[in-house]
């Protein structure tokens, strides 16, 4: 989905607050542990967790600290999976307990294809309503494969709790000026791209 989380290349943001100010919120390690518990217990998988964050209302996402986004995702998934009831959580707090928005069906992987280091590839011009791991800034763009990964669960299925095929990714190298012509610093941009998101081009 083209959600608020897909930040790469978005303009208008100011300087990075660096170095970070000292930060000590005791509820944050608690959220980290609760999230780890649910993940280790296989109540949900990592892609379902990421997608639950992506499903947060954009206004909530953009204003919430990092671990509040995690908190919202864990609570949403535990309710959706039937482990706990929404009312149980709401009865424990004074005020609203925001959850992420509803989940859609997800999608299957593309027919099998293979890639090798050195291949020229284009990222498919796809607009996916559910979870995926293709940042918008590479959609439809051409790059070169510089690495092949082991096989991972296909996010577009796994993120929706659907049986996911295992699929490798390519580390694809793009030139920044091909991604954002005339308005970027010169660099090589690399993105880990699932094979289902790619099509092979003829070599030149």
């Amino acid at each position, binding site marked *: 989905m083209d959600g608020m989380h*897909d*930040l*790469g*290349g978005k*303009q208008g*943001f*100011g300087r*990075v*607050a*660096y*170095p*970070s*100010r000292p*930060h000590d919120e005791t*509820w944050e390690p*608690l*959220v980290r*542990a*609760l999230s780890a*518990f649910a*993940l*280790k217990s296989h109540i949900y998988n*990592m892609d379902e967790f990421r997608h639950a964050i992506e499903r947060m*209302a954009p206004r909530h996402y953009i204003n*919430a600290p*990092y*671990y*509040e986004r995690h*908190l919202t995702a*864990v*609570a949403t998934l*535990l309710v959706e999976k039937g482990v*706990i009831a929404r009312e*149980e*959580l*709401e009865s*424990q*707090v*004074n*005020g*609203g*307990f*925001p959850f992420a928005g509803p989940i859609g069906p997800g999608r299957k992987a593309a027919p099998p294809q293979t890639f090798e280091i050195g291949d020229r590839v284009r990222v498919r011009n796809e607009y996916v309503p559910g979870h995926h*791991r293709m*940042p918008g*800034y590479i959609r439809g763009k051409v790059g070169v494969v510089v690495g092949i*990964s*082991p096989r*991972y669960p296909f996010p577009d299925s796994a993120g929706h709790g659907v049986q996911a095929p295992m699929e490798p*990714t390519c580390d694809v190298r793009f030139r*920044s000026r091909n*991604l954002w012509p005339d*308005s*970027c*610093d010169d*660099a*090589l*941009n*690399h993105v*880990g791209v699932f094979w289902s998101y790619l099509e092979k081009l003829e070599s030149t």
Partner: protein
Amino acid sequence: MPHDQHSFVAPPEQRAAALEIVLRRKGEMPETFVHDFTEHAEEKWITDNGARMVARAWVDPSFRRRLLADGTTVAKEMGFDFPEHHRQLVVLENTAAVHNAIVCTLCSCTAYTIIGAAPEWYKDLEYRARVVRESRTVLREMGLDLPASVEIRVWDTTADHRYMVLPAQPPATVGWSEEDLAKLVTQDSMIGASRLQAIAR
């Protein structure tokens, strides 16, 4: 408690506590889980892990080759652990001519068991949005003014492998012990936000 998006939202610390209470009440979560997990995370998943790998790579060429070829195996041999979804550690070599920088634009993925929990700035929207498009400008704002001759390579962590930068060794430190070298290596240098310099031992 009924609410809509305009009503007062309970503070996150209250919502986190509520989640813990309800999970415990279900008997889903062992009594000691939060304590034990937090202790493990804080004691085992530390920047020193990556720093030790970097220092050894600087003094041992065959270790360096193996680290660059298969970081996962090397990290496990040194006793470091990975969560289930971190399936590969990819180590990126900085040189005089190449500077690598890591980001996760879609969330905030890092090799946290190897370089320690991600710093706040790495998770901030500003870094995620800008470093892919304005890498040289952002690094300069953060205090790293790279010569124009240095090629910048940005790596967006969108899949289940995790990147770590192998910083270039400061020339003045050649001959130092592995232990002293490890003390030089910062978390930021393994993300690519800084390059290392020798400091007095």
